[in-house]
């Protein structure tokens, strides 16, 4: 254990920043300079291999100038928006409390309404395979978001390598089922346990690190797992991955055409949609399990210790909380849910390869947690819907999709810096549960 004390509280980032024309201009010029440095080689000079393999390049100063200009103007716009929307709590602090209460009432009905709607999706959109597939995708990310939320949102540990556990879960199921012929329902808990095991293994050396260091090491861990998957050809199949992973069965009854399949047993005509619907309810059940367990854990001493750790690690130590094991349990719990989701992913795809487990996945899940409001279950679900659904929505924009998408995210984070659902609900109360405003809740720094 480290003998030295932690530095006392980190300086608040939102102190009294000077906001004036000069400040805004200075910031914009700085941003533009950074953009110039970044893009001068990326955009300013275009290189290509010529006919005979020689290097050909030409300059594109026009594009470069317009990009730098866009960054300059964008930076000014963002600063002005910040100024108008209030420097601190974003729009939140301007919204009168009655409206906020109204929003929280709406929030109370929003969750059940959303749940009922989700249950009905396969009924309403039975014939629209595209929507069903999208629903499954969204629910997978909802589950991943809820899993990572335990680590990042509750315990305040910044984990950039969450995809590693998703991969461990997927490969656990893929390998166990193809080599030993174990069924999905046996592999599912095993995948979770293995992922949790890896979570502990990773966590043990790493959890002494804090903040940025932890983030970097977890990021590296995610990459290492992927590289192992690529290079350990004998076991993982390398870049070719694992194919022919068994599809899930309804407690042993396969969802296949012909004799012995579910359709013929029920005496209804076979349709491939049955399997999609089954997968939809399967991931819905898994996600709801994650949610139920997380909500319960929050009200147990372990969950309260996670949140206390996020609030103040030093005080936790003084209260006799073993912070190493507490962090490890958070890591393991999050990893376990990631492992479940991975097993589901493997059975849905029937094929997995290291390509599915890149850093981009970790970043996406983390973005969902941050956008949702760290710690909030409803917020994470909404954010997953917005991110995955929104991404599909912008499909028609083609090349501008990422741009519009990124802009939308920036705007949301300016509007609500602490995420869609920023406030925190107490885990226990005497008379009345009063939601706690986001500017009191710490984000954790380890």
């Amino acid at each position, binding site marked *: *254990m480290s*003998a*030295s*004390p932690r530095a*006392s*509280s980190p300086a608040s980032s939102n102190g009294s920043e000077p906001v004036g024309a000069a400040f805004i201009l200075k910031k914009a010029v700085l941003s533009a300079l950074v953009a110039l440095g970044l893009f001068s080689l990326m955009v300013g000079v275009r290189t290509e291999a010529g006919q005979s393999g020689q290097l050909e390049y030409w300059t594109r100063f026009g594009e470069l100038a317009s990009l730098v200009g866009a960054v300059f103007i964008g930076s000014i716009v963002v600063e002005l928006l910040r100024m108008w929307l209030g420097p601190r709590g974003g729009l939140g602090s301007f919204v009168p409390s009655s409206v906020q209460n109204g929003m929280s009432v709406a929030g109370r009905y929003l969750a059940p309404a959303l749940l009922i709607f989700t249950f009905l999706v396969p009924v309403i959109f039975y014939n629209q395979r595209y929507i069903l597939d999208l629903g499954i995708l969204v629910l997978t990310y909802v589950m991943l978001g809820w899993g990572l939320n335990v680590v990042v949102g509750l315990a305040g540990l910044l984990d950039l390598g969450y995809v590693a556990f998703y991969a461990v879960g997927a490969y656990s199921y893929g390998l166990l089922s193809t080599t030993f012929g174990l069924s999905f329902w046996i592999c599912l808990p095993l995948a979770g346990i293995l992922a949790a095991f890896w979570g502990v293994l990773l966590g043990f050396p790493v959890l002494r690190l804090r903040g940025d260091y932890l983030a970097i090491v977890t990021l590296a861990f995610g990459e290492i797992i992927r590289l192992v998957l690529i290079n350990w050809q004998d076991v993982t199949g390398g870049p070719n991955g694992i194919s022919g992973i068994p599809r899930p069965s309804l407690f042993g009854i396969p969802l296949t055409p012909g004799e012995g399949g579910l359709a013929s047993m029920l005496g209804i005509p076979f349709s491939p949609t049955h399997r999609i619907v089954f997968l939809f309810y399967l991931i819905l059940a898994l996600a709801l399990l994650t949610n139920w*367990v997380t909500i*319960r*854990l929050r009200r*147990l*001493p*372990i969950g*309260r*210790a996670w*949140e*206390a750790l996020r*609030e*103040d690690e*030093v*005080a*936790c*130590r*003084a*209260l*006799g*909380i*073993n*912070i190493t094991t507490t962090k490890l*349990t958070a890591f393991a719990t999050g990893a376990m849910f990631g492992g479940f989701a991975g097993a589901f992913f493997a059975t849905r795809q029937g094929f997995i390869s290291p390509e599915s487990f890149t850093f981009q996945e970790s970043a996406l899940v983390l973005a969902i947690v941050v956008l949702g409001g760290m710690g909030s279950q409803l917020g994470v679900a909404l954010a997953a819907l917005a991110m995955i659904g929104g991404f599909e929505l912008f499909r028609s924009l083609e090349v501008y999709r990422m741009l519009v998408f990124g802009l939308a995210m920036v705007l949301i984070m300016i509007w609500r810096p602490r995420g869609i659902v920023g406030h*925190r609900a*107490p*885990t*226990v*109360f*005497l*008379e*009345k*549960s*009063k939601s*706690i*405003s986001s500017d*009191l*809740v*710490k984000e954790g720094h380890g």
Partner: protein
Amino acid sequence: MSSAPILALENLTMRFGGIIAVNALSFTAQRKQITALIGPNGAGKTTVFNCITGFYKPTSGVIRLTHDDGAQFEMQKLKDYNISKQAKVARTFQNIRLFPGMTALENLMVAQHNALMKASGLTFLGLLGVPSWRSAEQSAIDNAVFWLKRVGLLDRADDAAGNFAYGDQRRLEIARAMCTGPALLCLDEPAAGLNARESGALSELLLSIRSDHDTSILLIEHDMSVVMEISDRVVVMDYGVKIAEGTPREIRDDPKVIAAYLGTDEEEAAAVMEAEA
């Protein structure tokens, strides 16, 4: 009941690079008494607390704690969390360290973590919601309510601790420390920033913790009226060493102490005292 003092420091030394913050300090704190540790700014008082509560590993020396039943702990060997869990030492911080985003009640529930963890069967029984867990949780809430009432914050149980006024935060931090069921309570400047009425109430609270709850108290305090009123014994530090020890009355009249506080040498201080008398 053990006759040994609850806390005994033997030649405690804490060095930070070239600075010797605490230098071969020895003193004892008696059972069921309030022992005050005073001294000018930078004397090393908080460093002593940090050594006792495991935040610093002392460079050398022994910190011995003896429970009523005679169980002994050498605190410099314990892991930091075991100092609260096994040795039953609770503390507050000079710059308050509550969990600001959690309610007062939640703060006090976190303080009962170890007992609750056991009752929840390391979470598994709690997850299933078995009756024994429920009753343990209820008694933890009752304990929290008791202490909230004791420090006069019951009506604010469901408010976020970060929203409390300064004096209320100080009292909540004491309540949180008491919820761990300590044998020794270490308070780092509990009266700092309190007005006269509040520090009067604080004195009463501490006296009652000592006599009604069988808790020994080690107190760092700059507010001399509080120190003189409630402490049974006073230890004075300056530049990391003990310069005096005795009853509040003895300390008040000790020229060495006055010299340390006034920053002058002894003869001058004696002269000042004589002139005043």
